[in-house]
């Protein structure tokens, strides 16, 4: 069991730190841990709604504080929370888009080898991701089994990779890397003919 934190905070952090990969698997054990965590979260929320005197220090920015499992240990994909089993996935980079559609180069994360070019409807992107759509944007497209009302159905899902910001430290480290990686470069100067 990990540190105390709100489920929402953990979810957001895990999504940034552990972007979708093709190695993500949710085991039954992990699903049980998650289900228990959600149930406890739900119980606290109910308690809060029923009892307005519930201690405010038990909340962080409006979310109840709980002793929850470290999600990063058991799951590293925003997408896999929906899939009970992922069958096929691609990493895509958008090469063009119109008002209604977008076209992307797709790398097969399962079989490797040749790439594909796919054209998609923009309406298939979730509203949360729509503002991330731009030329060069990276997304993950997966096909798998979903659980819907207790039924397993095959569906496809597109999730855009969340924002990555390079901070001051990244910039400074990058400059140091230039010296380390390229400090011995030797240019042969040739006069113009």
């Amino acid at each position, binding site marked *: 069991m990990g540190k105390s934190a709100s489920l929402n905070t953990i979810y957001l952090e895990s999504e940034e730190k552990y972007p979708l990969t093709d190695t993500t698997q949710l085991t039954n054990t992990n699903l049980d841990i998650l289900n228990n965590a959600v149930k406890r979260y739900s119980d606290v929320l109910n308690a809060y709604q029923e009892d307005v005197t519930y201690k405010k220090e038990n909340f962080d920015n409006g979310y109840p504080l709980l002793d929850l499992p470290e999600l990063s240990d058991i799951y590293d994909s925003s997408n896999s929370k929906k899939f009970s089993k992922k069958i096929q996935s691609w*990493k895509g980079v958008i090469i063009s888009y119109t008002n209604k559609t977008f076209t992307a180069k797709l790398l097969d994360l399962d079989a490797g080898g*040749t*790439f594909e070019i796919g054209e998609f409807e923009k309406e298939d992107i979730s509203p949360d991701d729509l503002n991330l759509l731009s030329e060069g944007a*990276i997304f993950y497209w997966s096909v798998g089994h979903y659980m819907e009302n207790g039924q397993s159905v095959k569906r*496809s899902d597109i999730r855009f990779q969340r924002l990555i910001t390079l901070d001051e430290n990244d*910039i400074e480290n990058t400059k140091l890397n230039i010296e380390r990686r390229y400090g011995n470069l030797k240019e042969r100067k040739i006069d113009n003919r």
Partner: protein
Amino acid sequence: MITDKPTQSEVEITLIGTGGGYGESIILKVGIDSWIIIDSCINPFSNEPLSIEYLSQIGVDTTKVILIVCTHWHNDHIKGLAKVLSLCPNAEFCFSAVHDLNKFLLLCELDNTKKLKGGSISSTNEFSDCLAVINNRGTYFTKAQCNLVLNTVKETGLEFSLYALSPSPKTISDFDSELSQLITEFGKRNTAIINKSPNDKSVALLLKFGEHRVLLGADLEIGKDEYEGWRHIVKHSKVLDEHKANLYKLPHHGSENGYLKEIFDILVNDNSTLKLTPFRISGLPKKEMMDIYLTHSDKIYLTSSTIVSKKAKKRNSSIEKVINRSVISLIEAKFSRGIVRSRIDFLALGSEWTTELYEGAIAYNKT
């Protein structure tokens, strides 16, 4: 047979293509046994560079490779180039000129940092890996620009000189401004680097030996005016002479923006050997352009057919059903290796190029 090595008195110009998407590469043999590799392509299933595979097939030791040229940093020309460099220990590295190499390196390294965070699949990573290889082993690099002789081999009483015809001074200057903008915009969003016009920076090359000329067009486009691209070359190049080329690797997969009639008026003889690599998934070359090239020569060779498959990869039928519901279209960029090899005896008077085709390569004609 693909296994035979050229004789000591033969120049070889071999174009290797993949059908588009996995690169093209040109292999030159000059002098008695000196080899030059221009750009790189890979087998997407093994990730092995096809240039190295070819040299191995014909029994050439990679220590004989003296120069490796990166014409521009598009994925279809640079894939596997760092591995090629590392396998050719004596090769120097040459790439399109940038005024401020440190600024370009900053862009490459920022992209590398982003890649480590999962946010880039850019070809700058391959380029920076190339520089790291030559940095570690201490071989030289050269920044190519118009009117530079990149390499000269003097053997058998002849000079074999490889000249850069581009980029032009204006293109290099424009790229400097573009670099500053790319760096300024970098890092905020999770997107790959979008450099709209690396083709502008392509290094077109001219090989001279005796009275023979070979023109290698890279992906160079014609440019907006006489200060860019092929328009700059035909108007301002200082390395052209009275001899025209008899072998021409057509630029940019035979696209319309790589064709300029003046190239044939000034640089290329009628009925020369013309070669190109199709980029099938982009529909290149178009039939209209091939018809134009047929007016210049009936000796046109392609590394693969131009027929485009509209199919996705074959998968389990239940997955295909979900895929078909989810996309408007899904097309696999098929890999097909094709080799167009030309040789000429540089000691024999009046000798002409002979061309052989291997695997997916075809001769193009009107039918």
